[in-house]
Protein backbone atom coordinates (compact mmCIF):
# COMPACT_ATOMS: atom_id res chain seq x y z
CA UNK A 1 0.00 0.00 0.00
CA UNK A 2 1.38 3.47 -0.88
CA UNK A 3 2.53 5.63 2.04
CA UNK A 4 0.09 8.19 3.45
CA UNK A 5 1.15 11.82 3.82
CA UNK A 6 1.65 11.23 7.55
CA UNK A 7 3.80 8.18 6.87
CA UNK A 8 5.87 9.94 4.19
CA UNK A 9 6.78 12.58 6.75
CA UNK A 10 7.17 10.22 9.70
CA UNK A 11 9.67 8.01 7.88
CA UNK A 12 11.34 10.67 5.71
CA UNK A 13 14.67 10.56 7.58
CA UNK A 14 15.10 6.90 6.68
CA UNK A 15 13.40 6.76 3.26
CA UNK A 16 15.99 9.35 2.16
CA UNK A 17 18.60 6.62 2.63
CA UNK A 18 19.93 5.41 -0.71
CA UNK A 19 18.03 2.31 -1.80
CA UNK A 20 15.39 2.56 0.96
CA UNK A 21 12.84 5.01 -0.51
CA UNK A 22 9.07 4.71 -0.37
CA UNK A 23 9.28 1.21 -1.78
CA UNK A 24 11.58 0.01 1.00
CA UNK A 25 9.28 1.57 3.57
CA UNK A 26 6.25 -0.13 2.04
CA UNK A 27 8.14 -3.43 2.20
CA UNK A 28 8.93 -2.77 5.86
CA UNK A 29 5.30 -1.95 6.65
CA UNK A 30 4.35 -5.26 5.06
CA UNK A 31 6.89 -7.30 7.08
CA UNK A 32 6.51 -9.47 10.13
CA UNK A 33 9.34 -9.94 12.63
CA UNK A 34 9.39 -12.40 15.49
CA UNK A 35 11.32 -11.05 18.49
CA UNK A 36 12.29 -13.98 20.70
CA UNK A 37 12.81 -12.56 24.16
CA UNK A 38 11.75 -9.16 25.54
CA UNK A 39 14.78 -8.64 27.78
CA UNK A 40 17.99 -6.67 27.48
CA UNK A 41 18.38 -7.36 23.75
CA UNK A 42 14.67 -7.53 22.91
CA UNK A 43 13.76 -4.12 24.36
CA UNK A 44 16.08 -2.01 22.17
CA UNK A 45 15.61 -4.27 19.13
CA UNK A 46 11.82 -4.02 19.34
CA UNK A 47 11.88 -0.27 19.92
CA UNK A 48 13.93 0.40 16.77
CA UNK A 49 11.85 -1.98 14.69
CA UNK A 50 8.72 -0.24 15.93
CA UNK A 51 9.78 3.32 15.24
CA UNK A 52 11.14 2.24 11.84
CA UNK A 53 7.67 0.98 10.90
CA UNK A 54 7.96 -2.81 10.68
CA UNK A 55 4.36 -3.81 9.97
CA UNK A 56 3.98 -6.51 12.60
CA UNK A 57 6.20 -7.35 15.53
CA UNK A 58 5.55 -10.47 17.56
CA UNK A 59 7.10 -10.07 21.02
CA UNK A 60 7.48 -13.45 22.67
CA UNK A 61 8.60 -13.98 26.26
CA UNK A 62 7.44 -16.32 28.99
CA UNK A 63 9.05 -14.41 31.87
CA UNK A 64 7.74 -11.87 34.34
CA UNK A 65 9.45 -8.56 35.10
CA UNK A 66 11.95 -8.67 37.96
CA UNK A 67 13.67 -5.83 39.75
CA UNK A 68 17.09 -6.95 38.45
CA UNK A 69 15.84 -6.48 34.85
CA UNK A 70 15.45 -2.73 35.25
CA UNK A 71 19.12 -1.80 34.65
CA UNK A 72 18.72 -2.68 30.97
CA UNK A 73 15.13 -3.55 30.06
CA UNK A 74 13.90 -0.01 29.64
CA UNK A 75 10.35 -0.81 28.48
CA UNK A 76 9.52 -1.69 32.11
CA UNK A 77 9.25 0.27 35.35
CA UNK A 78 8.95 -0.54 39.03
CA UNK A 79 5.17 -0.54 38.65
CA UNK A 80 5.43 -3.50 36.27
CA UNK A 81 7.24 -5.89 38.63
CA UNK A 82 5.86 -9.48 38.60
CA UNK A 83 3.78 -8.77 35.46
CA UNK A 84 4.51 -10.75 32.26
CA UNK A 85 6.96 -8.97 29.98
CA UNK A 86 5.35 -9.50 26.56
CA UNK A 87 2.10 -7.52 27.05
CA UNK A 88 3.82 -4.69 28.94
CA UNK A 89 6.44 -4.39 26.19
CA UNK A 90 3.71 -4.51 23.53
CA UNK A 91 1.73 -1.71 25.20
CA UNK A 92 4.81 0.52 25.36
CA UNK A 93 5.73 -0.20 21.75
CA UNK A 94 2.23 0.59 20.46
CA UNK A 95 2.51 4.06 21.99
CA UNK A 96 5.61 4.69 19.89
CA UNK A 97 4.05 3.98 16.50
CA UNK A 98 0.40 3.34 15.69
CA UNK A 99 1.36 2.01 12.24
CA UNK A 100 2.78 -1.13 13.84
CA UNK A 101 0.77 -4.12 14.95
CA UNK A 102 2.46 -5.45 18.07
CA UNK A 103 1.42 -8.94 19.08
CA UNK A 104 2.46 -10.09 22.57
CA UNK A 105 2.93 -13.81 23.14
CA UNK A 106 3.46 -15.17 26.64
CA UNK A 107 5.20 -18.46 25.92
CA UNK A 108 8.37 -20.40 26.60
CA UNK A 109 10.32 -21.11 23.44
CA UNK A 110 11.46 -24.72 23.28
CA UNK A 111 11.84 -27.57 20.82
CA UNK A 112 8.13 -28.34 20.87
CA UNK A 113 6.80 -24.77 20.60
CA UNK A 114 9.34 -22.85 18.49
CA UNK A 115 8.24 -23.84 14.99
CA UNK A 116 4.63 -22.93 15.58
CA UNK A 117 5.54 -19.65 17.28
CA UNK A 118 7.66 -18.32 14.42
CA UNK A 119 5.31 -19.38 11.62
CA UNK A 120 4.64 -16.58 9.13
CA UNK A 121 7.58 -14.40 10.19
CA UNK A 122 9.90 -12.89 7.57
CA UNK A 123 12.70 -12.74 10.10
CA UNK A 124 13.46 -14.02 13.59
CA UNK A 125 15.46 -12.04 16.13
CA UNK A 126 17.27 -14.11 18.74
CA UNK A 127 17.11 -11.89 21.83
CA UNK A 128 17.33 -14.86 24.19
CA UNK A 129 19.49 -15.42 27.24
CA UNK A 130 20.56 -19.07 27.19
CA UNK A 131 22.11 -21.60 24.77
CA UNK A 132 19.39 -24.24 24.97
CA UNK A 133 16.55 -21.92 23.90
CA UNK A 134 18.74 -20.43 21.18
CA UNK A 135 19.32 -23.90 19.76
CA UNK A 136 15.56 -24.60 19.76
CA UNK A 137 15.00 -21.33 17.89
CA UNK A 138 17.81 -22.12 15.44
CA UNK A 139 16.29 -25.52 14.62
CA UNK A 140 12.85 -23.97 14.11
CA UNK A 141 14.20 -21.18 11.90
CA UNK A 142 16.02 -23.74 9.74
CA UNK A 143 12.91 -25.93 9.49
CA UNK A 144 10.79 -22.96 8.44
CA UNK A 145 13.47 -21.45 6.17
CA UNK A 146 13.34 -18.14 8.05
CA UNK A 147 16.56 -16.11 8.47
CA UNK A 148 17.61 -15.30 12.04
CA UNK A 149 19.65 -12.53 13.61
CA UNK A 150 21.78 -13.82 16.48
CA UNK A 151 23.09 -11.76 19.37
CA UNK A 152 24.44 -12.58 22.80
CA UNK A 153 25.98 -10.45 25.55
CA UNK A 154 27.88 -10.65 28.82
CA UNK A 155 29.78 -7.95 30.68
CA UNK A 156 31.16 -5.61 27.96
CA UNK A 157 31.24 -8.35 25.32
CA UNK A 158 28.72 -8.89 22.53
CA UNK A 159 28.39 -11.17 19.50
CA UNK A 160 26.19 -10.63 16.45
CA UNK A 161 25.55 -12.45 13.17
CA UNK A 162 22.99 -12.86 10.39
CA UNK A 163 22.14 -16.52 9.90
CA UNK A 164 20.48 -17.80 6.76
CA UNK A 165 21.52 -21.40 6.11
CA UNK A 166 22.40 -22.99 3.76
CA UNK A 167 23.88 -19.73 2.41
CA UNK A 168 25.51 -19.02 5.79
CA UNK A 169 26.46 -21.00 8.88
CA UNK A 170 23.65 -21.66 11.34
CA UNK A 171 23.94 -21.01 15.06
CA UNK A 172 25.07 -24.53 15.90
CA UNK A 173 27.95 -24.26 13.42
CA UNK A 174 29.68 -22.04 15.98
CA UNK A 175 27.76 -22.08 19.29
CA UNK A 176 27.92 -24.98 21.71
CA UNK A 177 24.34 -25.49 22.84
CA UNK A 178 25.32 -27.80 25.66
CA UNK A 179 26.90 -25.09 27.77
CA UNK A 180 24.95 -24.38 30.95
CA UNK A 181 22.81 -21.25 31.17
CA UNK A 182 24.37 -18.51 33.29
CA UNK A 183 23.16 -15.10 34.39
CA UNK A 184 26.25 -13.00 33.64
CA UNK A 185 26.68 -9.39 34.67
CA UNK A 186 25.35 -7.21 31.81
CA UNK A 187 25.43 -3.42 31.92
CA UNK A 188 22.40 -2.02 30.09
CA UNK A 189 24.55 -0.34 27.47
CA UNK A 190 26.07 -3.65 26.29
CA UNK A 191 22.64 -5.16 25.67
CA UNK A 192 21.47 -1.83 24.25
CA UNK A 193 24.20 -1.74 21.61
CA UNK A 194 23.76 -5.36 20.53
CA UNK A 195 19.95 -5.17 20.51
CA UNK A 196 20.18 -2.03 18.39
CA UNK A 197 22.58 -3.77 16.01
CA UNK A 198 20.07 -6.62 15.72
CA UNK A 199 17.46 -4.07 14.63
CA UNK A 200 19.95 -2.68 12.11
CA UNK A 201 20.51 -6.15 10.61
CA UNK A 202 16.73 -6.60 10.41
CA UNK A 203 16.14 -3.24 8.70
CA UNK A 204 18.92 -3.85 6.16
CA UNK A 205 17.53 -7.27 5.33
CA UNK A 206 13.88 -6.19 5.13
CA UNK A 207 14.51 -3.08 3.02
CA UNK A 208 17.30 -4.58 0.91
CA UNK A 209 19.72 -1.80 1.87
CA UNK A 210 23.32 -2.14 3.02
CA UNK A 211 24.97 -5.47 3.66
CA UNK A 212 24.07 -7.86 6.45
CA UNK A 213 26.51 -9.85 8.58
CA UNK A 214 25.71 -12.99 6.57
CA UNK A 215 28.66 -15.37 6.99
CA UNK A 216 30.33 -13.01 9.44
CA UNK A 217 30.45 -12.58 13.19
CA UNK A 218 30.74 -9.18 14.78
CA UNK A 219 32.59 -9.24 18.08
CA UNK A 220 32.32 -6.25 20.38
CA UNK A 221 34.89 -6.20 23.14
CA UNK A 222 33.73 -3.03 24.82
CA UNK A 223 36.26 -3.19 27.65
CA UNK A 224 39.20 -2.63 25.27
CA UNK A 225 37.27 -1.11 23.34
CA UNK A 226 37.37 -2.97 20.04
CA UNK A 227 35.01 -4.16 17.30
CA UNK A 228 36.04 -7.03 15.01
CA UNK A 229 34.19 -8.63 12.13
CA UNK A 230 35.43 -12.14 11.40
CA UNK A 231 34.56 -14.55 8.64
CA UNK A 232 32.63 -17.66 9.62
CA UNK A 233 32.56 -21.00 7.91
CA UNK A 234 29.88 -23.65 8.04
CA UNK A 235 30.67 -26.67 10.16
CA UNK A 236 30.39 -29.62 7.76
CA UNK A 237 29.46 -31.83 10.72
CA UNK A 238 26.85 -29.41 12.13
CA UNK A 239 23.94 -31.39 13.61
CA UNK A 240 21.43 -28.70 12.56
CA UNK A 241 22.33 -27.58 9.02
CA UNK A 242 24.44 -30.45 7.62
CA UNK A 243 23.05 -31.66 4.31
CA UNK A 244 20.77 -28.67 3.67
Amino acid at each position, binding site marked *: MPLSTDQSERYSRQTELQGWGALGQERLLGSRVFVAGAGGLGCPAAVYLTVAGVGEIVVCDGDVIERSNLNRQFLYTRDDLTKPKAPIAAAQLRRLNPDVKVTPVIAEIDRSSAQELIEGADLVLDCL*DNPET*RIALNRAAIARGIPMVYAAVA*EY*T*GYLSFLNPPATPCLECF*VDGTRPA*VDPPVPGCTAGILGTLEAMEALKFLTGTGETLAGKLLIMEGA*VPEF*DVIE*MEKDPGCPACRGL
Partner: protein
Amino acid sequence: MIIYLRSGGKLKDRLKPDVDQYTRRIEVEGDKPLRDILNEVGVPDSLVAFAFINGKLERLEYRPVDGDVITLQPPVSGG
Protein backbone atom coordinates in the same frame (compact mmCIF):
# COMPACT_ATOMS: atom_id res chain seq x y z
CA MET B 1 58.38 -20.52 17.64
CA ILE B 2 56.69 -17.51 19.18
CA ILE B 3 52.97 -16.83 19.10
CA TYR B 4 50.86 -14.17 20.78
CA LEU B 5 47.56 -14.80 22.57
CA ARG B 6 45.23 -11.87 23.06
CA SER B 7 42.07 -11.27 25.03
CA GLY B 8 40.30 -8.12 26.08
CA GLY B 9 37.38 -9.54 27.99
CA LYS B 10 36.74 -12.19 30.54
CA LEU B 11 39.74 -14.35 29.57
CA LYS B 12 42.25 -11.59 30.20
CA ASP B 13 42.96 -12.56 33.80
CA ARG B 14 43.48 -16.22 32.89
CA LEU B 15 45.82 -15.23 30.11
CA LYS B 16 48.17 -13.19 32.34
CA PRO B 17 49.17 -10.66 29.64
CA ASP B 18 52.84 -9.64 29.54
CA VAL B 19 53.38 -7.81 26.23
CA ASP B 20 50.67 -5.22 26.84
CA GLN B 21 47.39 -5.16 28.77
CA TYR B 22 45.83 -7.81 26.56
CA THR B 23 48.61 -9.83 24.98
CA ARG B 24 50.79 -12.70 26.17
CA ARG B 25 53.85 -13.91 24.32
CA ILE B 26 54.17 -17.69 24.26
CA GLU B 27 57.09 -19.84 23.20
CA VAL B 28 55.75 -23.02 21.67
CA GLU B 29 57.85 -26.18 21.37
CA GLY B 30 57.02 -28.23 18.31
CA ASP B 31 53.86 -28.43 16.25
CA LYS B 32 50.70 -28.73 18.32
CA PRO B 33 47.06 -27.72 18.21
CA LEU B 34 45.90 -24.49 19.78
CA ARG B 35 43.77 -26.49 22.23
CA ASP B 36 46.90 -28.04 23.80
CA ILE B 37 48.72 -24.71 23.93
CA LEU B 38 45.79 -23.08 25.71
CA ASN B 39 45.59 -25.84 28.29
CA GLU B 40 49.35 -25.61 28.90
CA VAL B 41 49.17 -21.87 29.62
CA GLY B 42 46.24 -22.19 32.02
CA VAL B 43 43.36 -21.20 29.72
CA PRO B 44 41.07 -24.27 29.63
CA ASP B 45 39.68 -24.68 26.13
CA SER B 46 36.17 -24.88 27.65
CA LEU B 47 36.51 -21.15 28.37
CA VAL B 48 37.20 -20.30 24.72
CA ALA B 49 34.29 -19.94 22.31
CA PHE B 50 36.15 -18.31 19.42
CA ALA B 51 39.76 -17.98 18.37
CA PHE B 52 40.58 -15.82 15.40
CA ILE B 53 43.66 -14.88 13.45
CA ASN B 54 43.80 -12.09 10.89
CA GLY B 55 40.04 -11.74 10.81
CA LYS B 56 39.37 -15.43 10.30
CA LEU B 57 37.84 -17.85 12.74
CA GLU B 58 40.01 -20.86 13.52
CA ARG B 59 39.02 -24.03 15.33
CA LEU B 60 40.98 -25.17 18.36
CA GLU B 61 42.53 -27.94 16.26
CA TYR B 62 44.39 -25.22 14.34
CA ARG B 63 48.18 -25.56 14.58
CA PRO B 64 49.67 -22.10 15.05
CA VAL B 65 52.65 -20.91 13.04
CA ASP B 66 55.44 -18.58 14.15
CA GLY B 67 54.25 -15.02 14.70
CA ASP B 68 50.51 -15.78 14.87
CA VAL B 69 48.49 -13.29 16.89
CA ILE B 70 45.48 -15.25 18.14
CA THR B 71 42.53 -13.44 19.70
CA LEU B 72 40.48 -15.48 22.16
CA GLN B 73 36.84 -14.87 22.99
CA PRO B 74 34.83 -16.46 25.81
CA PRO B 75 31.43 -18.14 25.50
CA VAL B 76 28.72 -15.50 25.89
CA SER B 77 25.04 -16.32 26.10
CA GLY B 78 23.27 -13.54 28.01
CA GLY B 79 20.51 -11.39 26.63
